[in-house]
């Protein structure tokens, strides 16, 4: 990928870290909220 490979790979790493991190955080928050609802008897645990 030429001598600019470091910039290209860093860009895709940024995408992975920022958007991947947001996805993991969003799924984790949803799971926590569901667990809390289930613990209070407001929803069946999935």
């Amino acid at each position, binding site marked *: 990928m030429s001598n600019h490979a470091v910039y290209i790979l860093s860009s895709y790493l940024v*995408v992975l870290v920022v958007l991947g991190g947001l996805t993991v955080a*969003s799924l984790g928050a949803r799971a926590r909220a569901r667990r809390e609802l289930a613990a209070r008897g407001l929803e069946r645990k999935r």
Partner: protein
Amino acid sequence: MADLHFLANPARFRRFSQRVLPGLTLATVLCLAVGLYLALVQSPPDYQQGETVRIMFVHVPSAWLAMAGYGMLAALGASLLVWRHPLAALMARAAAPVGACFALVCLLTGSLWGRPMWGTWWVWDARLTSMLLLFFLYLGHIALSRAYDESERGDRAAAILSLIGVINLPIIKFSVDWWNTLHQPASVAKLGGPAIHPTILIPLLWMAVSFLLLFVLLVLVRTETEIDRRRLEIAEQGA
């Protein structure tokens, strides 16, 4: 529009979201996998930018989604302030961090493209500065919506900010025409059709669709979470 109106009810929206999420997740993963193959393997180097054109396949879609996301925030803000839709505030809370992340990706990948192409990480030109302002508007929205003990007050303040900040969207879009900027003018969405060869344009549009699917997926998941959190808040107040 009348068909979409039933989604304004949080409980119905949640049921709808739970039905579409599995298929949407699969479509997003498949689209991203094909998009990355097209962007990193299939597409040829550009005759001017060389291999660094591959950064454009993530930079440009991020910019589009960051702008579209803010337009959505403004529409939700108007919906909250004018019609008091119960879902608008929850969806705005869910969408703001997603839009902020796409704006951040746009700024960072743009900087990583600028260093080898322009010889600098950053210049204070109109396009880059207005994009940075968009990122700060997102941060302001997130901070305002969480700044009050009463979540309704925070949601209304954030909605007003989203409506004021929407003026920045045409500034971002037309900054390259209105001012003499280092950033290149529009090459996809322009009169007379795109000025990009199909071998570059197809991966770019494919990645844009993939990012759009990811954006919708994240907003749906986060809106579900906001609905659940609001239910917990109501349960705590009732206890």
